[in-house]
């Protein structure tokens, strides 16, 4: 995907944050030296093309009082589609990835309250008959942020 120089400027700036004030675009116009209208239309375009997956707040689930975990299951090829359907039927399951491993199904569980994580796991185990590995984040390490293209 070829991005215009302005698109790159917008992405680099807005990954770091977005102004929270009455007219945030005017503020960005000064920082980026790109007209406000152009910034808006470029973000719209990149969103529709799928370059930008989200524009808004990234909540800290645990701090907000919610529960969050990474879970995995050993799912046989023959049962994969059926189990996917069961797991994805839970509104608390946010993403579900197939990985090349005996533990083949990996998904994120996000709940309103911390104690609900275990309830969702119990229900998934009941419905599928498969053990769920619960791997909540214990510690997050700082990351360098540069990603050269």
């Amino acid at each position: 995907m070829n991005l215009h120089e302005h698109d790159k400027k917008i992405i680099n700036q807005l990954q770091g944050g977005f102004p929270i004030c009455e007219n945030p675009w005017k503020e960005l116009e000064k920082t980026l030296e790109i007209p406000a209208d152009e910034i808006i239309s470029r973000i719209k375009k990149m969103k529709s093309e799928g370059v930008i997956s989200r524009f808004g707040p990234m909540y800290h689930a645990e701090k907000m009082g919610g529960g969050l975990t990474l879970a995995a299951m050993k799912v046989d090829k023959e049962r994969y589609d059926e189990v996917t359907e069961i797991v994805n039927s839970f509104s608390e399951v946010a993403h579900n990835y197939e990985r090349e491993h005996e533990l083949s199904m990996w998904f994120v569980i996000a709940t309103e309250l911390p104690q609900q994580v275990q309830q969702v796991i119990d229900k998934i185990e009941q419905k599928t008959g498969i053990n769920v590995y619960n791997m909540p984040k214990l510690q997050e390490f700082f990351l360098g942020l540069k990603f050269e293209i």
Partner: protein
Amino acid sequence: MIDERRLISVLQKGLPLITHPYAAIASEINSTEDEVINYIQLMQEKGDIKRFGLVVRHRKLGYKSNAMVVWDIPEKSVDALGQCFGQFDFVTLSYRRPRNLPDWPYNLFCMIHGQDRDDVKKNLSLMIKSCQVEGVNHELLFSTRCFKQRGAIYIHCHEDENKSERVEL
């Protein structure tokens, strides 16, 4: 008084791309622009909002391959190695998680990216060499498919589950 729960849920859908986005949100939740702005600022200060901005898809930007690499690290070395792995540009996530013994001995999880699978493997070798973890038990898990919520739509994987990832262009 602002209805916090409604604000959080409306914001979750994303910020409207219009001239006065916070005013639009205010009218949706029967609040005022000032209240919305103040409350979002407060959530950011408290850390309830980790980051307010945009998230890009690596895949669309040429990082077509990514994998989860998991390590079995002695507890006393986790801090140092978690940080060591985090210094690389291609690592977008470095978390300590609990082991699930006996068959899952891994306690440090990183998400790594590359142009293709070989590139990802090359990056892994670089991590091993630079952080001196030759001989440390680890596994590389490539993702093959992912299913999004609502209808189990079958799509290519972006690994954008980590909403706090950043990419420098």
